[in-house]
């Protein structure tokens, strides 16, 4: 009897153990006493890095990207190695959706890669937590790189003085900037006999809806729609409507959620109405962009967003397309966001100088940037190079200039990256489906959602204060 009771007891212990550890496998195993020693060696090697000429400095570089992008970066890293004989770079790539988890697990386990991609939204946490190395002096001292040539808006995303992002020392450099422009199917417009949109004067909302409705039709007479005005995704396209209407998710002090303002509700309502009231998008409950993305590529969608990362894929589109500003709301001014991904150096690296050199090679050097731009995986980071890139009207889209205008003029960062974490901002999109389905008005939604989001924002602010005091 006593023997029998043993087995379930052990089983219980094991299963409970497994259940708990299932989520905390993030490399805790070596978190016990490893960090103290590795930290010490990391700080000591600051002055020893000059001696490392005799032995090879081996760096690890962790990044993500599509197949084209990975190939382009690998090639550029090879070139870096050829130019820097003392350095060997070990590349670690992951699938895009697993990158954040793997990186954070590596950081928690005190085994962060020497050089890695970072989301600008994590900058404050990484600096306060002592994860990122201050590379300001390396950037200033590098003779081959002139940081003033790189987009200011891009570099500022990775400056932090302990209080405000955008000021102070550099903790990373932008891998690229991703201005999110609006595109339109030129061939479809010409076939429908609709005058082409002006590339310098944005549509009003009314004009946009009117044109979208005109484009939505049954072209082969089988009684089913097979062409639509647009097909937007709320997560990536609502910003443009909200901002151009003079509203925002958060106030200037970044402490108050402001979605309950009427201007905000108006923009959100319009977004839902394009689908439900004006019927200018494919089928209802259409939240999965996969469909509209595929339809755009098959030439069934009139207006669709275009980022610089799309260009290599869109070069093969069977129709002509071009870029225009997003339609403007009550402010009369167009608006959109600029995405970015940075490259930073771990504070625990043994070779800070070489690691910083790699970052600069990939983000700010003529040679590196030329290789990456030639591979068509991004817009060049260097302003003069970007001018030349945009002026080339021989490749689609002709109006690449729009990308530069977004960066120089009307692009903004996404609201979620402005705060310590993006939980409050993400909640907005988690709960939004009833509005998109037309089961709830935008006005009711923002009223109901504001307090919930405010609570999470307060928590993020509290968390930030704590991380600073450490």
């Amino acid at each position, binding site marked *: 009897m006593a023997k029998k009771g043993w087995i*379930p007891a052990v*089983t*219980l212990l*094991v*299963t*409970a*153990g*497994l*259940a*708990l*550890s*299932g*989520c*905390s*496998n*993030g490399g*805790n*195993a070596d*978190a*016990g006493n490893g960090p103290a020693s590795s930290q010490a060696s990391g700080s000591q090697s600051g002055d020893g890095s000059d001696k490392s000429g005799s032995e090879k400095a081996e760096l690890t570089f962790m990044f993500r990207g599509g197949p084209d992008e990975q190939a382009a970066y690998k090639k550029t890293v090879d070139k870096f190695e050829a130019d820097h004989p003392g350095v060997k770079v070990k590349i670690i790539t992951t699938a895009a*959706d697993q990158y*954040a*988890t793997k990186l*954070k*697990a590596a*950081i*928690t386990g005190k085994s962060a890669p020497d050089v890695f991609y970072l989301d600008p939204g*994590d900058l404050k*946490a*990484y600096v*306060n*937590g*002592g*994860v990122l190395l201050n590379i300001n002096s390396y950037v200033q001292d590098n003779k081959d790189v002139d940081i003033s040539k790189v987009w200011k808006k891009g570099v500022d995303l990775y400056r932090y003085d302990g209080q405000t992002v955008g000021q102070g020392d550099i903790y990373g450099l932008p891998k690229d900037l991703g201005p999110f422009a609006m595109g339109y199917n030129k061939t479809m417009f010409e076939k429908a006999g609709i005058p082409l949109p002006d590339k310098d004067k944005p549509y009003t909302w009314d004009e946009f809806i009117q044109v979208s409705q005109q484009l939505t039709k049954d072209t082969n007479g089988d009684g089913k729609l097979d062409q639509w005005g647009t097909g937007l995704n709320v997560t990536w396209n609502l910003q443009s409507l909200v901002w151009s209407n003079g509203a925002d998710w958060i106030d200037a002090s970044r402490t108050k959620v402001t979605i309950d303002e009427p201007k905000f509700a108006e923009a959100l309502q319009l977004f839902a109405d394009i689908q439900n009231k004006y019927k200018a998008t*494919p*089928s*209802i*409950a*259409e*939240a*999965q962009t*996969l*469909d509209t993305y595929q339809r755009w590529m098959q030439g069934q969608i009139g207006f669709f967003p275009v980022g610089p990362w799309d260009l290599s894929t869109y070069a093969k589109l069977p129709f002509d397309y071009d870029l225009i500003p997003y339609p403007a709301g009550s402010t009369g001014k167009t608006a959109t966001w600029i995405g970015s991904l940075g490259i930073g150096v771990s504070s625990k690296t043994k070779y800070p100088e070489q690691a910083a050199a790699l970052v600069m090679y990939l983000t700010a050097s003529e040679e590196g940037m030329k290789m990456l731009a030639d591979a068509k995986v991004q817009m060049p980071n260097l302003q003069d190079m970007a001018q030349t890139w945009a002026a080339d009207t021989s490749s689609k889209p002709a109006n690449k200039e729009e990308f530069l205008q977004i960066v120089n003029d009307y692009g903004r960062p996404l609201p979620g990256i402005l705060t*310590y*974490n*993006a*939980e409050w901002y*993400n909640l907005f*999109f*988690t*709960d939004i*489906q*009833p509005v998109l389905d037309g089961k709830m008005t935008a006005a009711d939604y923002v009223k109901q959602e504001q307090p*919930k989001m405010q609570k999470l924002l307060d928590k*993020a602010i509290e*968390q930030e204060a*704590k*991380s600073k005091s*450490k």
Partner: protein
Amino acid sequence: MKTNSRLYRKEAYYGYLFILPPVLGFLIFALFPALYSVYGSFTDWDGLGQMNFIGLDNFKDIFQDELFYKAMYNTLFMMIGIPIGLALALLLALGLNRRIPGTTAFRVIYYIPVISSLAAISIMWNLAYNGDFGLVNQFLDLLGIKGPNWLADKHTVKPAIMLMMIWKGLGYTMLLYLAALQSVPKDYYEAAELDGANAFHRLRHITWPMVKPVTFFVVVTGIIGGSQVFTEVNIMTSTGGPEYGSATVVFYVWQKAFGNLQMGYASAMTVILGLFIFIVTLVQFRLDKSSDIHE
């Protein structure tokens, strides 16, 4: 009996050596992280810097956290799939236990999902559930039914994921039942038939009690596994589904820990989940024991 002879000592030495790797593995990869996460649950750990002890604050917050309750509800809801899967698996096993041609082929067909990668299967079902061109809705179209946009509707997203999990686990449970069925002595059935028992009686009074250990095993492991569902949800609804309709507890833990830098809070949730599993399993073992005595 004295065991301090050289031979005994040597044997014991080798014995311990043999069990050392799994024991070490358990200590390093399961027990230590588990204890560490229990400790972490009482701190404001962000996964990057220091851990400050904050007592029960995390737990207090969790019990007021709407999303935690939602995630818990979703997790429990999807466990409805366990009895459904069980019943289907038993039916299939009964069917395949007969001497009809082609059983091997069927066994293979039902077992393929079990050995397939969960991530690959999730991607496949993701496409199948697509509201516009998905296989599921195309099939329903043939029957004249207009299917919903499965994964974008808060009412259908849980049943949709549940269905996939049943499909994935069916072959495994079926195989266990099949093995159990084949070890039921034939004379029981013969005796029952002589006494005039019909097919239902035989199922109810012979087969069901005889396969009970398997049922028990499947229910226990099913609840333990069902409490930890993550991959399917993460791949099929990467934001936790419409109105968080498919987010499980582990999914929420993952979001908190790796998305929002709240490792301490996330650890506290895993502690609650671990306790939940512990208690449920304990109750099950008690129930199983008491029903054994009555038989």
